[in-house]
Structure formats: structure tokens, C-alpha cells
């Protein structure tokens, strides 16, 4: 039996694109290599204290590829060597916008990231933009880079953030774009939220909840009809289907029992917060700083800001209607940052509650259907 501990590590807040919905506070600051051993030691001390053998590092930004492959080679070596010396392990994952990807990255991606990377694209792309070239330019460059990475044999997962344009296009067009036009066999959809300071574009992401639920259920149906049996992975539906068939499933972070004990995020200045959304948007919720505070474990244990995260699920079952919900066991009140960005407090259930229920209901029906088919076939 073991726990998984993950760190969303942001080596830079700098970015090479100008997406209109980005909630991150961008600045030209990078994690310097001489600080990597100190950061690593803090993480390893914490793992040792908690009795966890492996830590997942999700490298993202800003845009991580701004750091260059040579930086990653050194940083990875420093971290992995230090971990091995203490009988521990890091497992690295890469999330990039791909815009500055070139084949020069391939060797590193195969050796440090197990030949896979995560990127993101929306459909239709209206908000991901180059500084010069806008959204069309972005789509063209990104698609070209995707093709090059696919040809290099890299495994690529894509995250799509839904917006009003996605709902207008409909689930069929959305699904076909990712699977047929881009040839992807693994992608996931995320619900949007307006992180950071208020911006006009937020209206675009304040989606009508019933319409969003209808879109997602339609997308679920399209995937089951066209992709499920052909091995296409579409998150979070794929894990939900596993769950409702009684199989082990790794549900996304928005549906963890308590995300506060499972991951943290650290930015290039050493700031520690709950996840990348918090570390880049909400200074009032910072837990501390790994370069200033001597002990990460102690920081997490004593941080008043973190206490609210820890106690959130407890608060929800006392004050919301979550305890009556048949999906409590897979939702636990949903995502704190989606709640905070919409309501100004995390001590409420996720505003996407009804959307999640619609998805869970669909997943449950499909899962039970698959189980019945399997029984009948025996």
C-alpha cells in the first residue's frame, strides 16, 4: 500500500504565446540550476518523512521549453541522482504548448519523460494565440509541431479546455477534430474557470451549465460509439468507465478525496501552493517558500492557508448537500480552485456540480452496460 505524491513544478512563469484566457501571472523568472539541489533536498526530506518512495514531477510553466533541453538534462540528473542516493525515485512528466518544440528535444523526452509529453489545444481555437499571428497562426504552428512529434514516435496527450465556441461547434465536430483531423488516440477535456484577476474574456468561460452538461454527455456518447473499443482514451470519461466497472481508476485531481495531501505546486521562485492554478493566481493562499522555509513538511503541516484545503471536504459534507449525493465517493465536492474562482471561497461545492452529475450518470450507465455484456459473454 502506498500513497502517490505529486509536484507540479513550474521552472518558469515566462511564456512564448499570448493566450487570452491564461490566468497566470507571467514574468521572466526562471529556476536557476544552483537552486535545484536545495529544492530536491526539500522534496526528498518530505518524501522520507511521509514514507513515500516515489514522487511524480509534472513540469509545466509558463512554457517549460523556454528552459531548453540542456537545462532539463542537468536538472533531471541532479534530482534523480539525489533521489537514488536515498533510495527514492522521481518520475517526470512534461506539459508544453509545443510551440518551440524541435527534434532536438527528442532524446531528452525519451530518456527523462519516457517518450511522452502533454500539450493542449482547444476546438475551435479562438483563445490560444501567438504574439504575432493570432489564433490561426498558433493553430498552424502547433499542428505542425504535433505532426513532427508524432513522427518522432512520441506519445502525445492533449488537454482541451472547453469554451462557448466548443459548445457551439457541438460534440461530434469536437471529437472528430481531435481523433480524425489530428489523429490523436489520447486527449482529455477540462472544464474552464476564470483564474486570476477579472478579465473580459472570462464571460466566454462562464458557460451555461446545462448546455455544458449536454455537450459533455454528447461527447461521451460520440466517444463510446467511435473510440472506446478502438482504444481511444478520452479523459476523464475513460477513468470513470473503469471506475463504474469496478476496476481501479485514477480519477483527475478535481475529484480526489482531498487534493491537499496528494500534490503541491512550486514555482520558479520556490513559492509553494496547492496547485499551479493557485501558485500563479492567488498569493493569499500560498503555503510558504522552499528556499526560505527550512522544512517543507513543517511548512505544509503548519500553513494556515493549507488548513482550509485540508478541512474543505469535511466542511462540505457538513454544510452542503454532498452527503446525500450518490456520487460523493468519486467527487468529494469537486475542485477547490474552480469553486474559489467562481465564488470567492473554497468552502462550497464545485459550481460544476450538476455538470459532473450528468457525466457520472452517463459513465455509470455505460459501465453497467459493459459489465452486463461481459457477463453475458461468459
Amino acid at each position, binding site marked *: 500500500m502506498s500513497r502517490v505524491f505529486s509536484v507540479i513544478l513550474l521552472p518558469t512563469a515566462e511564456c512564448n504565446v499570448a493566450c487570452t484566457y491564461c490566468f497566470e501571472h507571467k514574468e521572466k523568472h526562471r529556476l536557476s540550476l544552483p537552486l535545484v539541489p536545495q529544492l530536491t533536498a526539500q522534496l526528498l526530506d518530505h518524501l522520507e518523512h*511521509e514514507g513515500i518512495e516515489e514522487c511524480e514531477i509534472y513540469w509545466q510553466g509558463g512554457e517549460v521549453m523556454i528552459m531548453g533541453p540542456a537545462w532539463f538534462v542537468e536538472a533531471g540528473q541532479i534530482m534523480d541522482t539525489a533521489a537514488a542516493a536515498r533510495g527514492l525515485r522521481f518520475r517526470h512528466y512534461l506539459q508544453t504548448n509545443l510551440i518551440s518544440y524541435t527534434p532536438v528535444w527528442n532524446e531528452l523526452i525519451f530518456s527523462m519523460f519516457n517518450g511522452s509529453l502533454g500539450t493542449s489545444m482547444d476546438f475551435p481555437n479562438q483563445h490560444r494565440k501567438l504574439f504575432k499571428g493570432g489564433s490561426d497562426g498558433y493553430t498552424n504552428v502547433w499542428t505542425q509541431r504535433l505532426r513532427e512529434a508524432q513522427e518522432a514516435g512520441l506519445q502525445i496527450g492533449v488537454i482541451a479546455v472547453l469554451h462557448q465556441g466548443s459548445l457551439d461547434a457541438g460534440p461530434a465536430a469536437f471529437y472528430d477534430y481531435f481523433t480524425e483531423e489530428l489523429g490523436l488516440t489520447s486527449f482529455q477535456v477540462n472544464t474552464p474557470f476564470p483564474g486570476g484577476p477579472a478579465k473580459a474574456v472570462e464571460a466566454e468561460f462562464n458557460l451555461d451549465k446545462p448546455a455544458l452538461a449536454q455537450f459533455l454527455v454528447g461527447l461521451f456518447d460520440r466517444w463510446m460509439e467511435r473510440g472506446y473499443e478502438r482504444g481511444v482514451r478520452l479523459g476523464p470519461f475513460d477513468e470513470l468507465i473503469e471506475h463504474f466497472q469496478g476496476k481501479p481508476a485514477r480519477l483527475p485531481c478535481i475529484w480526489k478525496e482531498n487534493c491537499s495531501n496528494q500534490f503541491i505546486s512550486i514555482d520558479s521562485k520556490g513559492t509553494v501552493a496547492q496547485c499551479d492554478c493557485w501558485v500563479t493566481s492567488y498569493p493569499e493562499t500560498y503555503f510558504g517558500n522552499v528556499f526560505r522555509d527550512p522544512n517543507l513538511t513543517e511548512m505544509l503541516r503548519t500553513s494556515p492557508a493549507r488548513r482550509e484545503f485540508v478541512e474543505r471536504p469535511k466542511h462540505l459534507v457538513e454544510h452542503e448537500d454532498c452527503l446525500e449525493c*450518490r456520487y460523493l465517493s468519486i467527487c*468529494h465536492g469537486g475542485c477547490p480552485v474552480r469553486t474559489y474562482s467562481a465564488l470567492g471561497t473554497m468552502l462550497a461545492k464545485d459550481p460544476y456540480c450538476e455538470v459532473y452529475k450528468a457525466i457520472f450518470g452517463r459513465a455509470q450507465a455505460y459501465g453497467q452496460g459493459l459489465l452486463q455484456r461481459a457477463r453475458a459473454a461468459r
Partner: protein
Amino acid sequence: MDQSPWRRRRRLDQPALSSLLTAEEAQGYSQGPFVVLVRTRPEFERWLDAEIAGLEGLQVEDLLGDPEVWARAAQGSGRLPLDVVVAEPARDFSALYRLADVRLVRPVGVTLMARPGFLKALRLAASLQLPVRLLPGQPDAEGLAELEQALQFAMHDTRVEAPVEFFHSLLASFRGFDQGTLWDILQVDPGPPQEECASCRYQSLCAGFFKNPDPTYNCDGVRQIFSNIESMAEEISRDLAAS
């Protein structure tokens, strides 16, 4: 005062009873299998990772409200099972969330006193995939109604993945898989037998459980719960025969 409703416990796969010992009594104990009752943080930390012959688990009381205890329990990995007793489930149910990480690193179950409002704790425990042992006592009309709700929840709700005792073992017994008496299922030291029980059709399963401590307790409501479980078992058997 000892708040524990039982002093000896039996694991179903073991013929011998495990002695339930206080942390003090357990020091140096070597007379067979035992479970340690811990009620303070120092006692909990002292015994959590102990590797001592005969030690079969910890029964944890009065500590659900202490987040530090559960942060400690979620560290590392351990094989020693924890049985967390919730004496006031209606009041303390939400604190079960503190066990969410603990269950990832060591076996943990909860014992709920079936006092008014316990259903909230049962729902949350089930949602956290925690095995539950319900100690029903001698329920009054209100308690029986809640117990019946709990039964329906345990048998039909998709949230329930781990056993809810005594319901699931009784169901198995009615389907022909002997699980012992209710005393065995709930791991409670048997009370004295009651003459009146001899004519009860559920005597072989109940063994006078509901006649203790008050032998004048009217078992009609309890018999209805047994009967409902029996009906469910028959329905399962019919479904399986038809499939």
C-alpha cells in the same frame, strides 16, 4: 471509565479470541493474540508501528478529532489494522475524511455506535471505501427505522464497496455461508444466553445478541431486519439461479 463495549474480539478466521488490552496492559504481553486499545496520541504513536508477536491491531478511541494523529497514520506504510471507533457518529461523521489518506497506506475500518444520526457517518465511510462495523445496541423504534435505512443503503447504494457489518455477513449466512453468530460477526464478547431466544427462528445467528444487556428487550423490530436480510438473500439466490 472504560467506554469500550467489548473486551475481547475474535477474528473470523481465528478460533482463538484476541484479547483487547489497554496500552498499559499490552506492555510485555505474551499470552496470545491481542488488540491494543489506544486513546491518546502518545499511545497511538507508541503502538502504530510496533512489530510484536501477537499484536493484531489497534482499536482507536477518542482520537478522530486530532488531525495530527491521522497525518501521522498516513505516513509510510503499515500492516497493522486500525479500527477507529466513532462513539458519536452524528456529531463526528465529517472527521472521517481524516482517514482518507490513512486507508491508502494501512488497513483501516470504522466502528460506528448506531446512535441517532449514525447514517451520516455510514454514508461518508462508504464513500471513502472504509469497512464499517455497526454496533446496534438495543435500538428503540427510531433506532430501528435508521437501522433499516442503513440496511437499504448498505445493500443497494453504489457507493458501498467495502463490507458493512453486520449486514453483509448476515446476508452471507442466509445464503448458506456460515459466518458464525452476531457475536462473532461483530467481534463482541458473548453475553449470557437467554431462554426466551430458544424459540426464535434467528436464534442460531443472533444467539441472544439483542437480549443483552437488557433481557426484557422486545426483539420484534430486530426480527424484521433479520427477515428483510433473509428476503434479500433469497432474491439473490433466485436471480443467480435464473441467470
